[in-house]
């Protein structure tokens, strides 16, 4: 009797663990996939920024290395889910703007990621004291008209 119960619960536990592992693997895999530039570029609205990035001096970095907050995983997942839903909404309705721009929050995140690598360059200047807007001047480093010449093609 006791053996049977043990056997039963072990079975349930085993099945539970397997299901849990599968869900975890799928989630991790999806999260990883959703972090690739190819995934970002799958949306039509991202075509030109993706094309610019491919020609830029930062093409070795994925989109999320600049556009996800430089903090813990929980914050990153929550942020990605929130902006992901917003992007999906506008992509579905095709209501994204003519010129895609960063939001104020998005700009803060990008600037933080600039400093993640380049802090030592500016640490002895006012720019290191926070609130500096790196991309006001370095606007065309990764995305910009100079990198995506050619415009609308007629074929």
């Amino acid at each position: 009797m006791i053996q049977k119960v043990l056997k039963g619960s072990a079975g349930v536990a085993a099945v539970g663990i397997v299901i849990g592992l599968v869900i975890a693997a799928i989630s991790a895999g999806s999260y990883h996939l959703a972090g690739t530039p190819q995934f970002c570029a799958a949306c039509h609205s991202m075509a030109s920024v993706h094309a610019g990035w491919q020609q830029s001096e930062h093409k070795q970095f994925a989109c999320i290395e600049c556009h996800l907050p430089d903090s813990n995983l929980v914050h990153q997942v929550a942020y990605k889910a929130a902006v992901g839903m917003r992007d999906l909404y506008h992509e579905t309705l095709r209501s994204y703007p003519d010129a895609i721009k960063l939001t104020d929050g998005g700009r803060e995140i990008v600037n933080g990621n600039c400093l993640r690598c380049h802090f030592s360059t500016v640490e002895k200047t006012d720019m290191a004291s926070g609130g500096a807007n790196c991309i006001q001047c370095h606007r065309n480093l990764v995305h910009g008209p100079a990198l995506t010449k050619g415009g609308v093609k007629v074929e």
Partner: protein
Amino acid sequence: MSKRLLIITGLMVIALAFVIVAARVFFFQPPSVVKLTKIPDGEYDPAVWGKHYPLEYQSYLKNREMAPSPTGFGGSVKVQKSVAEPALLENFKGMAFSKDYAEDRGHPYAVEDLMETKRVTPKTVGSCMTCKSANLIDIFKERGWGYGKTPLPELFPLLKHPITCANCHEPATMKLRVINPAFIEAMANRGIDIKKATREEMRSYVCGQCHVEYYFQPETQKVTFPWQNGLNPEEMYAYYAGQPFGFAQDWVHPDSQAKMLKAQHPEFETWSGGVHGKAGVSCADCHMPFMREKGQKYSSHWLTSPLKNIGPSCQTCHDQSEQWLLERVKTTQNHVWQLQKLAGEWVAKAHAVIGKAGAAPKIDAAELDKSRELVRKAQWFWDIVAAENSMGVHNPDQVLNTLGRSIDLAHQAIETANRAAGTNF
């Protein structure tokens, strides 16, 4: 049972939403290229082109809008410029621009406005239609520069369409092209082969084929650009000083008796030396920004102030807010407008003083001629700014310099005239 139905319905709604989102986002994306349709050669009606390029055509039709510009300078409302700047009437005394000098309207009105302006008389030459109509293509093909001497009213029946798609596009490929032979020749004289131009260069050349300073060679009435020495006001003035092809003046001012030049809309020249021009930002980058309609990207063909569309026109490069950018342009334009008005008024005064000095009993004729040359140059430096459509924004520092020179030259002209006649006007 009903609970089960509810769950099934709910699941189906979720599945349907999922399918729709997936379809819209991943499988049925808006086209990323414009589908090419060949338009027959000689088709100049924009409505025909528009059937195949509807987004571009819809935006082209907005050129019919008549509205003031967001800064209050320029705009497409037909109003006499002399209302805001009365000195125009003095400075263009004795020539057609004192009779009618209205703010220009959009490309679709080019032929209509040419036929209506009081500047045109039965003797006006055919050259004047060069930049007004796509029909130039056939007229030039059949007659060469011969059309230049044909009286303009005789050509009116041939002008079926104003400035349309064909002025800038090859009908079979939609590639950019230039049809004004004067531009092709002027660029060739500067060692630039238009045929080798890049797409980005063409995005300025198509505008530059008309938005330039020019004159007519007296013998042939051939349209010619004064670019041999360079494109800034000083260099163009020096070119005219050499009396090219016997061209000495546009008219003689009745008060000062000075041999005058009339400047024409030098947007291309002004832009080319400015910060945007030097940085390789084309006319179309700001004036024909990329827009989207249901996700499909297209170039706006509404040729108007970029400030009507600050997002796509300016903010693809400039990170500042719309309000900030608009204020910057307004600030520049207000500075330019103040000096432009001042320069125009001092030039008008110089004409009057030279006129009065000329009537004095004892005159140093050579000195009085010097004052006439000075007022000619002063007016050129004022007019090359006043006739330009941007109130200085295409090249703020150069424009302010030019106006400063104009004011100085006008003062010199007055001083010299008084010295010549021993007067103190």
